[in-house]
């Protein structure tokens, strides 16, 4: 189904909100699970939006800005996944792959802004030293305004203006290619998880990773809650052990000190 002008504009407005949130990282409505759902609501296909939200959220689970690398923009990826699935009738997991170029486009625009906004810093320094809070605020509004406008334009153009070429592209894709994209959508979470492992995994933590894997592979339960509870259990054990360890160490320190004291005394005699 095609996207109407009203829907395109509404998506643009939502992109302003979600985009600003992804810039500031406050409410996390920029995460795919929310941005997909809202997009589904706007396009009148809430059910598909929710399903796409679950799949895309997992694909982005490990793609976080923590650790210094800016990932493909999750807000745009969420919006475009639902837009593409809705307008070209492909499955949501195929649509994730097709929406990635749009998310990467936004990623590179934001990276460019990070560099460009450095030029505002001397102005901010000047207003800071003059204690000119009004002018200082204006610069901050300006940077946020630029970000909002960009999110609106990118989303409106990608969702509304580019829908005909997009539909033509999907139509021209052979079955094996569409199926390939669908497979990739299912494997994609592995990239995010690998990125999390790169930050978190040390040899001493390996048992916990394997434990979670084994639990989920052999317990038939709908979600990862059992593994999360087991994780919490081990975290508590570790926490109390660490506390005990610290107490013990403090005691040993004390004993050592008093030993020295004694030693000193005896030496004196």
């Amino acid at each position, binding site marked *: 189904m095609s996207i109407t002008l009203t829907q395109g504009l509404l998506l643009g407005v939502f992109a302003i909100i979600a985009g600003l949130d992804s*810039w*500031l*990282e406050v*409410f*996390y409505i920029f995460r795919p*699970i*929310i941005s997909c*759902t809202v997009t589904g609501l706007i396009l009148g296909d809430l*059910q598909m939006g*929710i399903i796409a*939200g*679950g799949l895309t*959220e*997992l694909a982005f689970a490990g*793609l*976080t800005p923590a650790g210094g*690398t800016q990932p493909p923009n999750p807000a745009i990826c969420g919006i475009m996944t639902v837009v593409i699935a809705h307008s070209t009738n492909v499955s949501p997991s195929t649509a994730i792959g097709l929406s*990635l170029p749009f998310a990467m486009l936004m990623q590179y625009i934001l990276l460019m*802004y*990070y*560099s460009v*906004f*450095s030029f505002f*810093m001397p102005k*901010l320094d000047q*207003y800071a030293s*003059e204690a000119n809070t009004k002018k*200082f*605020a204006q610069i*901050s509004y300006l940077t946020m305004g630029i970000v909002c406008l960009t999110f609106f334009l990118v989303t409106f153009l990608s969702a509304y203006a580019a829908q005909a070429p997009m539909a033509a592209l999907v139509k021209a894709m052979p079955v094996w*290619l569409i199926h*390939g*994209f669908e*497979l*990739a959508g*299912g*494997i994609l*979470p*592995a*990239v995010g*998880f*690998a*990125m*999390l492992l*790169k930050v978190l995994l040390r040899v001493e*933590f390996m048992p*916990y990773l394997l434990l*979670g*894997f084994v639990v*989920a*592979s052999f317990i038939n339960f709908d*979600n*990862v*809650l059992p*593994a*999360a509870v087991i*994780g919490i259990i081990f975290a508590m054990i*570790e*926490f109390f052990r*660490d506390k005990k360890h610290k107490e013990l160490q403090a005691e040993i320190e004390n004993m050592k000190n008093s030993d020295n004291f004694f030693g000193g005394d005896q030496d004196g005699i």
Partner: protein
Amino acid sequence: MESKELNQKLTSKDLTRLAMRSCLLQSAFSYERMQAGGWTWAQVPLWKKIFGDDKKALSEAMTDNMEFINTSPPMVSLLMGLLMSLEEQRVDRQTIKGLKNALFGPLAGIGDAIFWFTIMPIVGGIAASFASKGNILGPIIFMIVYFGIFLLRIPFARMGYNLGAKAIDVIQENSEIISRVATIMGLTVIGALISSYVTLSLTVKIGDVSLQKDFLDKIFPNILPLAFTFLLYGLLKKKMSPIVLILLTFIMAIVCSFFGIM
């Protein structure tokens, strides 16, 4: 004690305001100073209240705070509250600046460990498992949890303000154990997520024997997703960029689809 009451100009309403304004932290983000612009802007109204007509003090505070800072957005109000209590006491500028520089790094470490590496996989994983079956509970759970995390900015600001300089010991002493504990929780869940949500299975048959169903699944279910995740992990360790890995994943999937392997 007496002097503290004498100098106390900030009310709990002001601290709530500070917590709300802490959302502006990344408003003027740039590579050169990271969050400095938003960090300064967020605190301006409270400084104005503390310094009153003293323009010089305000200018000095703003200039000092325009130095590089990069910390955890959900926890930043803790640091703001802490430093604000020192500003209120008119502690000398050098001390405040030193504390800020000493604390923003460890706070970023704690924040990333708790919010990105632990809460995000757990809440995202559970919410997504509802959502991928079409259950609206998924996005609703996610939104409620993250709204709660947003509201935490208020107690964080109060905690920082009330503890004042005492918060420094609390942050520095506990940052190591907090990240350890968070890592354990996070990794357990990531192990489960790899098993549940990386979909990778072969359709190849050798004679009548399906390689996936009759062979791999009998040895260990989900062994392929685990192996593939570790392959990617190894490539990341070799400094390969995530974007390249995403492309590799697509190429592999498309090639396998073309030859009917998957």
